[in-house]
């Protein structure tokens, strides 16, 4: 659990983050959104003390984050940034092993961890361990960057626009992979982005920052239903509201019993994508299949329309 308690940051009298308090539940994905200059990145960087707050405190599982030197704190917290930040003179394996080496793990344990992470991120250890970052594609570099952040098995992973430099197709895949890995490892993720689609896709809870203040912090559906300010409403986009709602949950969550014709949808696709597929195929219902191929039921145009309506 991360408790942010009355955090303020001023640079030369200019308040960048103003008295922000929020509690981030363990094993969840929290996305901080806002326009540039809203203070979202500064807030994130105060959690691992890359930036020291002017006032307030941040507690990780009850302990003040100033109870140890900053570099020790940062070794316990994963950190991934836009453009991956890999060390160009070190191989993929050496990059991933950075924090374990700093922590003094033995070689066998480090090697095992590197192999495990490469496999987890669908990079063949035999082929990739000894390559240099520039020999990888953008998507692969980004995965190695996240793997490096997770190498010391941190409970918390901070991500600063981690997918910002990826093209849309690779970005969607990277987001799906991140969610799968988050579920597998149970890591608490705090992610900063300005991309609302990304926020709705990934977040358990969304924090909206505007001019240094936290203007709303809640579940994605709450933001759509009850935007706290006009700014939140603009950010979500009035015409986007039904689709935002549908993008929160998956087709698996909207399954109804009954038969349907046509190409089955995967249960992991968002309801928004399911609706799109229904509209495009011109059908009123499509079957939904589990990952092993068994048909779970169907999604219907009518059912999704109901879910997209303003919550009562």
């Amino acid at each position: 659990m991360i408790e942010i308690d009355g955090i303020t940051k001023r640079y030369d009298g200019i308040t960048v983050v103003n008295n922000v308090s929020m509690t981030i539940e363990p094993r969840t994905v929290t996305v901080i959104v806002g326009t540039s200059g809203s203070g979202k990145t500064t807030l994130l960087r105060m959690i691992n003390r890359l930036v020291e707050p002017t006032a307030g405190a941040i507690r990780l599982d009850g302990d003040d984050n100033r109870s140890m030197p900053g570099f020790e704190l940062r070794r316990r917290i994963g950190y991934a940034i836009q453009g991956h930040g890999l060390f160009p003179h070190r191989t993929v394996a050496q990059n991933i092993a950075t924090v374990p080496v700093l922590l003094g793990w033995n070689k066998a344990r480090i090697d095992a961890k590197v192999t495990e992470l490469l496999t987890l991120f669908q990079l063949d250890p035999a082929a990739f361990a000894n390559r240099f970052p520039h020999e990888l594609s953008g998507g692969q570099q980004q995965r190695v960057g996240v793997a490096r952040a997770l190498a010391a098995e941190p409970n918390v992973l901070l991500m600063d626009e981690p997918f910002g430099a990826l093209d849309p197709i690779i970005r969607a895949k990277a987001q799906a992979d991140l969610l799968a890995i988050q579920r597998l490892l149970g890591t608490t993720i705090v992610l900063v982005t300005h991309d609302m689609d990304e926020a709705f896709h990934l977040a358990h809870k969304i924090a909206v920052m505007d001019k240094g203040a936290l203007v709303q912090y809640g579940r994605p559906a709450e933001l759509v239903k009850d935007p706290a300010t006009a700014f939140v409403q603009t950010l979500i986009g009035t015409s986007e509201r039904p689709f935002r709602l549908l993008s929160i949950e998956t087709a698996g969550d909207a399954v109804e019993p009954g038969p349907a014709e046509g190409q089955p949808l995967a249960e992991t696709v968002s309801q928004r994508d399911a609706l799109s597929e229904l509209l495009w195929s011109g059908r009123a219902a499509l079957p939904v299949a589990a990952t092993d191929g068994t048909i779970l039921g169907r999604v219907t145009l009518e059912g999704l329309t109901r879910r997209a309506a303003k919550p009562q």
Partner: protein
Amino acid sequence: MKRPGPQKGSRPEWDGDGSLSIRFDKLGVVIALLIAYAVLAAPFATFRANRIVPGDAKGILQALPAGAGMLLLALMAGVALVVLLKTPTRLRLFAAAAGLAAIAVFIGMAATFLTPPANSYARVSPASGFWILLFSFALLAADSITRMRPLPLVRLLLLVMTLGGAAVVLTSGLWDGLSILKEYSGRADVFWLEAGRHVTLALGSLFAAVLVGLPLGILCHRVAPLRAGVLNTLNLIQTIPSIALFGILIAPLGWIAVNVPGAAAIGIRGIGAAPAFVALFLYSLLPVVANTVVGLAGVPREANEAARGIGMTDRQRLFGIEFPLAMPVILTGIRIVLVQNIGLATIAALIGGGGFGVFVFQGIGQTAMDLVLLGAVPTVVLAFAAAIVLDALIEMNAPQRERGRTA
């Protein structure tokens, strides 16, 4: 002459009608012209009755026994032809090596041929034709080696082979008739003493400059307000002519020698090696500091950011990330300094600092050009060898990082 047949790496080009079209090499044309001028119009060796009278220039045919002169002319024609046409690079390198070996052997032969028997006053020295040929073949060799893109280790090997070849010629006695070696034979002890001083001055001041310049560069990188001030001061020092700098240093160093206990005991004086050392050190600082600053500034921002973000301390970041990534640029600075210092150390002789400059200035004073060469040639060879060694070191360090830069 052998026609450049179809060899590995180069195929003759055939025109539509089947005739072989002759293609010229651009640099080759220049080198061939130089060779032609050196062989046909310039003197190969100079004969003087003693070491200071004006000499008597001799062309190749006059300087060598009849058969040998014709052989050298034929050899030079052969090399010129290989150089002129588009020929395989290996053949060109071989031609350059053969040319160098030929002039090395024949200048020795000329010395023996021209010196009257039992005359120890007569001097035979290489003349402009020889130097132009030497320059042409060195240029050809450098060009061929560049085209072949050899690995750094191979380049070092070539350097060792060249120096080894020169050493063999020197010890064989082939050149003993040449004026430079006659000057050397009278001063062998002093020569090696001054050589030692020269190297100590050049390397010692470089070492001191790296010792001071690296931390200063790091400081300038970390503390931005310091940067402009330090670099401008060093720039200013760089613009002071070396002789003026020696003069400026006499007063403060003299004062230190008199007033600081123990200073005089370790050799600090207003003149001599101390001011030379300090001057070379000051000249070395700018390239070292500037390249350290530029190298560190070139480290990708994201890599630095990530290093901090995952818990590296400042020291770990400096030695693990910034230094390795900046190293090629820093080494380039050190290379500049080393070559510059080997050349500049010659001036140290002016204020009694020793080094090869001693022979240069003695030679100028006595109008004995051979003595000047005894100081100048080793300096040039030393600077050249140092440049090749450091270039190889830089490249050996670079592969991973060079590729890394594009990431």
